[in-house]
């Protein structure tokens, strides 16, 4: 009899574990992109951090692994963008979901007629709130029903955003993460996700909504995860706990995306070796800073 009880107990334990562990996704999925043309979206700022507009192509030079590349196309303000906004609705965001929602709406309000944005929320899973659209008028009612609960699948959410952006025709692409912390439950690694974002040329802006009373270690951990995404993709990490600062940050992001420079070139090195190619964009004007992606992984022959 004891044996039967033990066996039943184990079966039930396994059943419980199956449901309590979030669904793990395969880490070997890949996003296919065209590698014959490399696109760089760059933000140029002055010493005060303001985005500089009206620069001309002749001021820019592109380098891949140290070798200068010939610029094939140069676009400025007129280029439309596609963005994915990722709203963290995990349990710890409970008191800030409303702020996050209003910031997302602020972003939609700031878009130009040709820009599109999509909204996802993520906690234990990634859920579509609004598909790519240009207007807040068709904003799904779902955004007003968002409740905070569960764990944080940040990496899975960023991967999903990259996947969605890879299907868009716009060259200028961005992912805006609004979260209070590091990943706790994703099936995908941060490295895998970062490679996916770089491969689709998505600039990641991360808005850290961590509570100010977190321990220094927790703060550092949250900041580290988000900064890594932003720095390597040419985006920006913004720490903004308050509502007004948050809305202002979103206005800044949407305006910055509107005045980026989109530069493309055909890489001289066409080897499909899967290796990292470092990118550098230089400008022949003093006191200006360029933010763009740090590189990309060449495709690999299967």
């Amino acid at each position, binding site marked *: *009899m004891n044996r*039967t*009880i033990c066996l*039943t*107990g184990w079966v*039930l*334990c396994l059943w*419980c574990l199956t*449901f*309590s562990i979030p669904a793990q996704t395969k880490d070997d999925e890949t996003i296919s992109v065209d590698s014959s043309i490399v696109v760089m979206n760059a933000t140029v700022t*002055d*010493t*005060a951090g*303001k*985005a*500089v*507009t*009206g*620069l001309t192509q002749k001021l820019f030079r592109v380098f891949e692994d140290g070798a200068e590349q010939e610029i094939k196309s140069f676009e400025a303000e007129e280029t439309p963008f596609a963005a994915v906004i990722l709203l963290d609705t*995990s*349990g*710890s965001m*409970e*008191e800030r979901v409303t702020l996050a929602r209003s910031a997302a709406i602020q972003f939609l309000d700031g878009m130009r007629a040709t820009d599109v944005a999509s909204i996802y929320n993520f906690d234990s899973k990634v859920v579509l709130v609004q598909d790519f659209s240009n207007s807040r008028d068709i904003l799904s009612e779902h955004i007003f029903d968002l409740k*905070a*609960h*569960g*764990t944080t699948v940040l990496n899975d959410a960023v991967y999903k955003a990259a996947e969605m952006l890879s299907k868009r025709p716009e060259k200028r692409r961005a992912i805006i993460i609004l979260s209070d912390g590091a990943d706790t439950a994703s099936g995908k690694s941060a490295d895998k996700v970062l490679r996916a974002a770089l491969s689709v040329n998505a600039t990641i802006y991360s808005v850290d909504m961590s*509570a*100010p*009373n977190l321990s220094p270690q927790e703060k550092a951990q949250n900041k580290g995860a988000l900064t890594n995404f932003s720095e390597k993709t040419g985006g920006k990490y913004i720490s*903004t*706990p*308050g*509502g*007004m*600062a948050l809305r*202002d940050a979103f*206005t*800044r992001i949407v*305006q*910055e995306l509107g*005045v980026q420079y989109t530069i493309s070139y055909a890489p001289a090195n066409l080897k499909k070796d899967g290796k990292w190619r470092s990118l550098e964009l230089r400008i022949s004007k003093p006191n200006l800073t360029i933010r763009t992606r740090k590189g990309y992984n060449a495709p690999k022959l299967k």
Partner: protein
Amino acid sequence: MLQRFIFIILTASLFATGYMIVEAQQQQQPIDSPLFHQKGADNEDRAWGIEERMAKMRIQKDKKDHEELIARGLELNEIIGQLEKSFEASGQLSQEDFSKLATAEKLAKKIRNDLGGSNDGDEEELPDVDKKMSTLADAVKLIQSKSEKLIGELKKSTRFTISVPAIQSTNAVIRLAKFLRVRN
């Protein structure tokens, strides 16, 4: 047999209850706990309050600065417009026009400074300006068009952006204002 069945059912219920408790705890983060909330919320609210006030002040200052920048551009454009009308009417610049030119130059320098440009712009080569300002009439026409371009760029800009063509237009206005004053 029945005893065994009851025992199994009880054990299963125990595990199921345990699972439900664990799941419920996962859904409710510590922030919902009254103990955590009381202690954390006070500090949090205070810290957020200070940061929020600072952010508000910074945003208001930025907005005011940008509005003032556009106002200066409009004032400059107005002065240049008056100057052009005066020149059109008399074919020359009066003493009053020259004092307006000095004001226009000062305003253009202030705008350039606000845009992050520097005095280096005075030395910058402006081929499209230098080639065209051979006569007073050409220079007056050109300063008017550069001033129009400047205000167009300023209106297009926001408090988050800096326009290079706007800086170049201020340089052109300054160069032309100097030229017109020297030509007298």
